[in-house]
């Protein structure tokens, strides 16, 4: 593989892991988040701080997951208090708070960010395999959870929280669990990102990034694990492929996203299900 391909596949794998981590919260458990990039950022900053001060890369991963999960736990607690659109805006607020705090702390590099993050020691190909492996593992884990009792409880919570509570599900606990697992995975993805790009700055974890990752989940088909995987992989590469039409890159991207929502709101999973259903009806 050429260096370009290795870089592309690595960033695809990291984006897939990041998108799947949001899918765990929003897709499986129905809790919308407009601030997921903050947890990605917490993971990235945690591991960057650790490895720049000499801690091995592999040890920084659990730390990144832990820090993101702690923040996710707190935000999960707020989801017990606020719901739906209120929750969406609260999570958005959390992301702005994260950026606001990071920008003003010199210890975290302030507006300049943290540069000179050391290499992972795995080699470029090794790192690519490692990232792909983690993304795959989390995808399989998501499939497993979706089929388990917890997945059923998540589904019920997403579908109708009040009814779920009425049949005796501890809705609050499941919501917090979804947030903790999802944000921990986002933290890991962030740590991978930091060591892929070898630089972190507050601007890489802003509102736009949170919206982009939510768009990946929605385009893939909310809750569909293979759909989100495909959408994240393709959408992370799209800006590179659109490089030829640089001026119109973002217009094309947003236009496609809009058309997708307007004409196929169920995402890729919906399109495939539609095709499959039609064929079965025809047979």
């Amino acid at each position: 593989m050429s260096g370009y391909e290795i870089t592309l596949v690595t960033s695809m794998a990291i984006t897939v892991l990041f998108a799947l981590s949001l899918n765990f919260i929003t897709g499986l458990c129905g809790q919308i988040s407009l601030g997921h990039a903050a947890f990605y950022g917490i993971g990235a900053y945690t591991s960057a701080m650790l490895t720049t001060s000499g801690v091995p890369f592999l040890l920084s991963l659990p730390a990144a997951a832990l820090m993101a999960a702690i923040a996710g736990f707190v935000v999960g607690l707020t989801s017990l208090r606020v719901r739906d659109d209120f929750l969406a805006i609260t999570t958005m607020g959390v992301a702005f708070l994260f950026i606001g705090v990071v920008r003003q702390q010199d210890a975290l590099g302030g507006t300049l960010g943290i540069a000179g993050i050391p290499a992972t020691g795995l080699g470029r190909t090794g790192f690519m395999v490692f990232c792909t492996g983690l993304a795959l593992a989390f995808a399989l884990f998501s499939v497993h959870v979706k089929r388990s009792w917890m997945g059923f409880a998540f589904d019920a919570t997403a579908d109708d929280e009040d009814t779920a509570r009425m049949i005796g599900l501890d809705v609050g606990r499941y919501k917090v669990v979804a947030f903790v697992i999802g944000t921990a995975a986002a933290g890991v993805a962030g740590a991978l990102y930091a060591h892929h790009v070898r630089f972190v700055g507050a601007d890489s974890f802003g509102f736009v990034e949170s919206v982009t990752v939510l768009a990946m989940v929605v385009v893939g088909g909310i809750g569909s694990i293979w759909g989100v995987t495909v959408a994240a992989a393709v959408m992370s590469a799209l800006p590179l492929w659109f490089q030829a039409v640089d001026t119109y890159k973002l217009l094309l991207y947003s236009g496609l996203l809009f058309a997708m929502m307007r004409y196929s709101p169920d995402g890729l999973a919906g399109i495939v299900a539609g095709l499959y259903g039609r064929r079965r009806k025809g047979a």
Partner: protein
Amino acid sequence: MLYVELTLQGLVQGAIYALIALGLTLVYGLLRILHVAHAALFTLGGYIGVLTTNATGSLAGGLVASMVLAGFVGMAVYRFAYEPILDRPPFVALIASIALFVAAQEVFRIVFGPYGISYVSVPLAGYVSLPGGLALKQGEIAVIVLALGLLGLLAWLSAATRTGIAWRATVTDPQIAESFGIDIRRVRYLNFFIGSALAAAAGVLVAMLNNLVEPTMGAVASYKALAIIVLGGLGSIRGTLIASLALGVTEAFGTIYIGHLLDRDAIAFAFLILILMVRPHGLLGRA
């Protein structure tokens, strides 16, 4: 005196927030859509205002042209973007709206250039001195007067006219309103027209205060207006007004006193989260 000055600055900012957020809350009250693309109409309003004012030399003309045109664009947004996906889960409309907003920013950049445009001669740039040694820009006073005027007009429309009553009935219960013979689609069109016109007015005013319209002018408006309507209790008009002013004043004080810890946006959202933890449905929201 610093306190009074900060409060005044906060109220001016709050009045602008109110003009932007009101349209958003109108849309939310009627359709339950977080209409992010509303901020694009704010920017569009700024562009039309500056271009018309420069062409005709009249700020009032620019204001009217921008409100009317943006109003019609707002109606088109409803017709072509939202109406077909109304029966979908709310995040579909939210993502569609965000995509539309980004696309609009790109169109502004491509059509009007990346560096923005300014008034040829800045309207209302002089200062007015107030008692106590304070001074406000004429433009800032115009903001407050215009905001009060427009909001007063809206309050009168909704309280005293048949259209206003039909509108309030539709917000309260669309089905019952329809069974009483109210044309819901007409109400929705009107809603988008008025909301977009108000945002456009805010766009003209902001363009005047900064003497600049640029493609990304709506970025701050897009997320901060969301925060405001949530703070006010989604769909509550009075709540939105209070939240706008409260946020304007909080930011004005916050940037002075805790600006070294948090930036302006972070202060706004810290305030928002704090309020939501105490009142999960916003300041004036109903459970």
